[in-house]
């Protein structure tokens, strides 16, 4: 089965949460959504792997959760707002999670934002970054 390549796939450093990605991430996001409840957060933290087995996600999705591989989770269909619930479960801030996605320390990330944020120049397309699509 082939899939249409969407124009926004050309934007670097970004996984657009579109219908195909949402479909693949459905059970993964269901797991993340479950972390809205305090008792579930506690159960997850006491035995992470066993808790994730309640959700019919894929092996790579499960491993990415256990490793807190945020970008891999985005690629595999997690939506950022649901991912935030995993960061909060860890007692981390959204900014911490965002900094990890960018490969910066939290302080470097916060400093970048205080200095006015990341310029879009150089980040509009993969060709601009000399990346392969």
């Amino acid at each position: 089965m082939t899939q249409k390549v969407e124009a926004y796939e050309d934007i670097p450093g970004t996984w657009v949460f579109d219908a195909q990605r949402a479909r693949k991430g459905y059970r993964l996001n269901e797991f993340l959504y479950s972390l809205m409840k305090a008792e579930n957060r506690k159960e997850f933290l006491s035995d992470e792997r066993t808790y994730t087995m309640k959700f019919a996600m894929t092996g790579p999705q499960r491993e990415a959760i256990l490793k807190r591989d945020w970008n891999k989770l985005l690629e595999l269909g997690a939506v950022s707002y649901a991912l935030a619930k995993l960061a909060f479960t860890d007692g981390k801030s959204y900014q911490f999670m965002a900094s990890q996605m960018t490969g910066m320390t939290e302080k470097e990330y916060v400093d970048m934002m205080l200095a006015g944020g990341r310029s879009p120049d150089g980040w509009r397309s993969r060709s601009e970054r000399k990346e392969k699509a």
Partner: protein
Amino acid sequence: MAKIIAGIGTSHTPAIGAAVDNGKMGEPYWVPLFKGYEPAKKWMADTNPDVVIMVYNDHVNAFDFKIIPTFALGCADEFKIADEGWGARPVPVVKGYPELASHMIQSLVLDEFDMTIVNEMQVDHGLTTPMSLLFGQPKAWPCRVIPLAVNVIQYPAPTGHRCYMLGKAIKKAVEDWDEDLKVVIFGTGGMSHQIQGPRAGLVNKEFDKAFLDGLSGDPERLSRISPLEYLRDAGAEAIELVMWLIMRGALGENVKEAYRFYHVPASSTAVGHIILESA
């Protein structure tokens, strides 16, 4: 007759609500932001609307992934505050206006907008952060609120043009309601920001300024900004700005800009705020 007398555009960054709740408004990081909203709070207190229509988006709190409505209008008596994973915000419950909301549903559906009717729903920071910014910290919110939740989480969000046209239909629906009411409509979210992936932290001040200028100058042009343009130039989450176009569409052709404020950053977001009065 009910009348939409003004529109408010504002970001709804959750960290702002958290700063209010945790008494951090006096910290150096937050002082410029809250100072920038002081004139707006005064404007709101002077204006004292009867009803607020709050265009916002849910962030995987009221709606999980089982059902994703594009336009969902809250028709309940009241809306409880969601626990988003760190406990519910300690803000008053939101009182709705089911009679007017139901009237809006009828009018909008007959005008060919296929609204989703929501009779029970919790509201999250997308709605409560703008309330805190404009109304402060009262024991009870001083007006009734009709929530209009828009899907901007799963791509594609409704187009800017569709949102603009929905705003026009909302104006018609409200003006068709006999009771004398002062209504203020909010468009929330934005401005430029991206909160995911290696490109997180993106801010485009030129884009944001052009958007703020265009709200009074040329909203038709803004309504033609493509989804790709939002994503590419202003960040993956900047698509939220389509919600400002619902607000703008509900104001009629001519508006007067009463106030504007722009500040970077709140967390990962460029914060924008505008007050537009119906001419």
